[in-house]
């Protein structure tokens, strides 16, 4: 899967277990040695307006076999190809921060799927028993929770995208992502920090980034446990519900990062097999709490820590 092109872009980074060569430095990513074998390339190039051939069209993406086209008007068009390359065609006036931040979302998700990795919408912390994964839709608190655990002294592998891969024996591992949380100002306050001192994720957004190089776990860890964070106003309390294997598969599919690309990429079956392997090997617990604007971070973290330390 290594790119065959000779003239690799100059910068080297390490993310999700891959060494990438990039056309500009990505300060949010870990650096990699200049002589490290390159797995994937981010470069500027011409990106078509449409994918040819069979494809699945969304509002801002098209997916076909080995191809994921995704775009945001005013920023750029991206094309992820065969799991080895992301081409970027910026729009006039687009700023570098936006180009990088958006590349690391949907185009990266497409590239990871193309490589047969398993990207989940989750944050991941390192515990003595292995990697603990917090699955959740946007706004359910997975980043805030991971950041809170970092303050309790846990190391963190990833925020937003958690990448699972299997070793030679079929055992699932979580890969380190990037040493940065993405947090809304209220979550930053919840953590006892001042949002206005933190850089914005994108210049025109209030959402912030909080780097955690000191707490970053740089090696893959075997998966110990998965938690799916959900809202439920039927009870005022926090509840933990361990899930049977079949329900684990459904929840993992619900929390697959960019699962909507799978039909177009034509890899639904392989993806389902990966999910089933994770479900068979790793406990998954649904965590419900009321959606009443109160985070109850301490209480939630205490309950989860008690559970994953068992």
């Amino acid at each position, binding site marked *: 899967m290594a790119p065959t092109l000779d003239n690799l872009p100059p910068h080297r980074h390490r993310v999700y277990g891959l060494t990438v060569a990039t056309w500009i430095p990505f300060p949010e990513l870990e650096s990699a040695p200049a002589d490290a074998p390159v797995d994937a390339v981010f470069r500027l190039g011409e990106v078509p307006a449409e994918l040819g051939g069979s494809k699945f069209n*969304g*509002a801002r*993406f098209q997916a076909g076999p080995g191809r994921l086209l995704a775009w945001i008007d005013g*920023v750029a068009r991206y094309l992820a190809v065969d799991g080895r390359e992301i081409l970027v065609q910026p729009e006039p006036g687009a700023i570098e921060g936006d180009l990088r931040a*958006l590349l690391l979302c*949907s185009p990266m998700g497409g590239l990871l799927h193309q490589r047969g990795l398993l990207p989940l919408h989750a944050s991941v912390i390192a515990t003595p028993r292995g990697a603990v994964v917090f699955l959740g*839709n946007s706004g359910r608190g997975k980043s805030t929770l991971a950041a809170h655990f970092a303050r309790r002294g846990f190391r963190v592998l990833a925020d937003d995208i958690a990448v699972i891969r299997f070793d030679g024996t079929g055992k699932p591992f979580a890969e380190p992502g990037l040493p940065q949380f993405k947090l809304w100002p*209220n979550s930053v306050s919840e953590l006892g920090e001042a949002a206005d001192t933190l850089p914005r994720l994108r210049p025109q957004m209030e959402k912030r980034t909080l780097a955690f190089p000191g707490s970053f776990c740089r090696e893959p860890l075997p998966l110990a446990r998965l938690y799916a964070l959900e809202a439920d106003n039927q009870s005022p309390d926090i509840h933990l519900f361990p899930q049977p294997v079949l329900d684990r598969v459904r929840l993992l599919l619900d929390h697959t990062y960019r699962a909507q690309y799978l039909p177009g990429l034509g890899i639904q079956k392989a993806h389902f097999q990966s999910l089933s392997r994770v479900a068979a090997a790793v406990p998954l617990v649904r965590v419900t709490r009321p959606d009443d604007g109160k985070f109850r971070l301490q209480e939630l973290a205490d309950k989860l820590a008690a559970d994953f330390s068992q």
Partner: protein
Amino acid sequence: MKGIVWLASYPKSGNTWFRAFLANLLHGGEQPVDINAFDTNNFAARPGFDRALGWETSDLTLAEVERARLAVQEVIAREEGAVFKVHEAFTDPRDGRPLFSLPATRAALYFLRHPLDVAVSFSHHRGKDLDNTIARMNNPQAVMAANDDDLDLQLPQPLGSWGSHVRSWVDAPGLPVQVLRYEDMLARPQEMFTAACRFAGFPDDPARVARALEHSRFEVLQQQEQAKGFRESVGGRAFFRKGQAGAWREVLSPAQVSAIVQHHGEVMRRFGYLNADGTPV
């Protein structure tokens, strides 16, 4: 059938009642459907929007999200049987931009309720006093779930004032829309719900409609909420509270009534909520 059916209303105007009816109509058996298992989502809920978009709205600017809105609807409209609850005005009250794609639309049902009763119910739902709520109903720029500092689980929903909301939907050029007054739904349920079903292309045979109505009666919904809670309630306050028409007479002061009538008299008169002499009906 492809194309989206919009269940549209200003908040607290009978939308959830219709969703309960529809869940029972489409999936009902001998027992009422669980109120926590309605399958009509709010279009502003992020997960469904993000799925059709292919990006997460929480990584995008509001302008980028708004630009993609109609394209998202057109992707969703390719699915069979898409039905969404919506509180947005049909056009953005701030700039007149359309918020709904006509090509993506199969039909719209617009639920309309006496604004004086809306004030009472909405005030309770929000946990804000009546004057605050009336000011919101009179605010032509009102937007629900607009918050820069936090990620609301819903996208911002431009609402406008109560009267401009009504006009934006019922007078939308080219929109196939059926108006349903809450008071008529209460007074003549079989007739009104059957008409709504026929208009939107839902099953409308009399026995099925009657059973769905029985299973979505106010008391049934309220009992379920009391027994096991309702996911969509806010701040621990009951969602299914009274379900009646005319409660405003006991609750609103003359000044509060006049604050609403002053702003929305014309629309109130048009839909039978105001007499010729300007007194609320």
